[in-house]
């Protein structure tokens, strides 16, 4: 077990290094060069100045040299400065990550509470009207573009009904007159629509998955044995059926968390929610490479670690799976 985890951790580290190099290289292929832009804005800037500036900043070096310099700085804890915010990257990224964690964490919990009971319920009433109806909703949920669902929620609840704010993270300039309870309430008002968007999509796929796994499990011989032994139906369903059906569901839930983290990029962008995903998007558009690199790498690391947790959990819960 320990060897399995160690091997997977090493793989994750190697993958992160490769990924960071690939994205470092790709950032260089993006349109717009901050120095060129700065030079064009300044009438006194000659091509010689530009070359000198690039030399001073080490930008004339080949890409791998620059990458290892960047990596060295990163290892020493120096994530660099943001060009647009004029702040160290750590100061920007930290709060953004916390915001994303709120958003995906709450969505994850909400999806769990709703999806698994619904999945079990529909599997027990297979082919009933309610099963068909929920199945239709589940299909709609896995097929709907998340950004469009977000827009529809905004049109309905923010524009037409005017119940909730259309976008943002918190009321700007409201800090002074609010106590901590009001602040929390304010944050929640801004979280409702993004959380709904993310949860609806996750719930749809989890309901389908739980239902399928539950149906599959209930066809096993040990369920027939349990029934033959004369166990009560509820004991057969919950003790023998659900417990076994939940094993693969646990993996999907752990994977779902990483999915929520990466899916949050679009939701955060539509709702202008100040999370890490929106930071990646904004910094790429603003040529703010330090921020883009760091937020992308940190997000990827979170996602990969959750994938690792999923694998370990799966192997731990199901004795039939070997670690090799």
């Amino acid at each position, binding site marked *: 077990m320990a060897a399995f985890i160690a091997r997977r951790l090493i*793989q*994750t580290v190697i*993958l992160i290094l*490769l*990924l960071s190099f690939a*994205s470092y290289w*790709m*950032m260089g*292929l*993006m*349109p717009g060069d901050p120095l060129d832009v700065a030079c064009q804005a300044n009438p006194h800037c000659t091509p010689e100045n530009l070359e000198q500036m690039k030399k001073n900043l080490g930008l004339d070096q080949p890409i791998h040299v620059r990458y290892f310099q960047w990596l060295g700085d990163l290892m020493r804890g120096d994530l660099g400065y943001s060009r647009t915010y004029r702040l160290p990257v750590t100061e920007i990224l930290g709060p953004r990550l916390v915001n994303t964690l709120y958003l995906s964490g709450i969505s994850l919990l909400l999806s769990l509470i709703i999806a698994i009971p619904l999945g079990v319920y529909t599997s027990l009433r297979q082919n009933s009207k309610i099963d068909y109806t929920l199945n239709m909703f589940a*299909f*709609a949920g*896995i*097929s*709907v*573009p*998340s*950004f*469009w669902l977000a*827009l*529809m929620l*905004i*049109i309905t609840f923010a*524009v037409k009904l005017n119940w909730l704010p*259309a976008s943002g993270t918190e009321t700007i300039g409201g800090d002074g007159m609010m106590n901590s309870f009001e602040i929390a309430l304010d944050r929640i008002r801004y979280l409702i629509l993004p959380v709904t968007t993310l949860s609806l999509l996750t719930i749809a796929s989890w309901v389908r998955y739980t239902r399928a796994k539950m149906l599959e499990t209930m066809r096993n011989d040990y369920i027939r044995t349990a029934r033959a032994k004369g166990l009560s139906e509820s004991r057969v369903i919950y003790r023998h059926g659900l417990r076994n059906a939940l094993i693969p569901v646990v993996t999907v839930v752990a994977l779902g968390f*990483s999915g929520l*983290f*990466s*899916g949050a*990029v*679009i939701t955060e*962008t*539509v709702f202008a929610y100040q999370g890490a*995903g929106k930071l*990646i*998007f904004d910094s*790429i*558009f603003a040529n703010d490479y330090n921020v*883009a690199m760091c937020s*992308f790498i940190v*997000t*990827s690391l979170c*996602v*990969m670690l959750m*994938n690792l947790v999923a694998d370990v959990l799966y192997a731990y819960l199901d004795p039939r799976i070997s670690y090799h």
Partner: protein
Amino acid sequence: MSTTEKPLSPHGIPAAQETPPADIHAHKSMFQLAIGQLMEHRMAVVSLVVICFFVLVALGANLIANSLGIDPEAQDILNRYGPWSAEHWLGTDEVGRDVFVRLIFGTRISLMVAFVVAIASTMIGIAVGALAGYYGGVVDMLLMRLTDSLLALPTIPILIIVASIDPARVPFLDTVSAENVSIVKMIFVLMIFSWMVQARLVRGEVLAIKEQEYVLAAKTSGMNGMQIILKELIPNVITPVIVSVTLGIGSSILFEAALSFLGLGIQPPTPSWGNMLNNAQEIVYSAPLLAVIPGLLILIITMSFNFLGDGLQDALDPKAIRR
């Protein structure tokens, strides 16, 4: 056969019965069985009709636009956000272009991108999966490491980064005409990140069937590895792949729409369902209907592909066939 005497093989062992045992379905081929099964899946049939309709619309886009006499890229600044009328069936957008005709051309672009991506990525997936599964060893390890690594990446952030690359700085893409470059780029970007599921699927199937007798027979008859993969293995894994292509088209439509919505996909003036929603955030107050329709089409077509995939899965899975 009326006789009780069974034909004997040269070794005196009764030969296998030539005709299959009398079965009510004996006259039906596997294909007919599958079609029959699919027809029982009501939503899949409806979906197939919907998909055919959209494909026809996409193919006939020029015809429809010509008969209406409207150019999808013609702007009319004096008629911004025009209402629904006899001339502009679904009104006009923020620069006065006809929404209905743009939707039709958007259908063409979105479907084309999705089909090309799904088919191309399936080919990559089959190639990788079959090579890894058949040869095993180092080939398998390397290819599967690559597959797993790509699967572990956070899809949306990485798509955003790759899609933001300036095509002019990529050696091959700078030769494509400016008009189509965003389409070609979009196809490449989505293709690179959507073959992995197919590869794993094909590898699993190949591992299961490569020990079968007919593969051994092919080997002893002198076929080499490539011939066995092409003639024996791939035809036998195609069934599960069909399902995943169908589902793949659905997800490609969603990814294309999301990236185009973010402004990183298909570039205007070429319409796609995603980029028609590009400025939707600004118009939710002034013209919310413009934000509703393209998304509704994306939802309908993606749902159709998902239902069809579901139906095909039931129909093509021999274990699920109800006799």
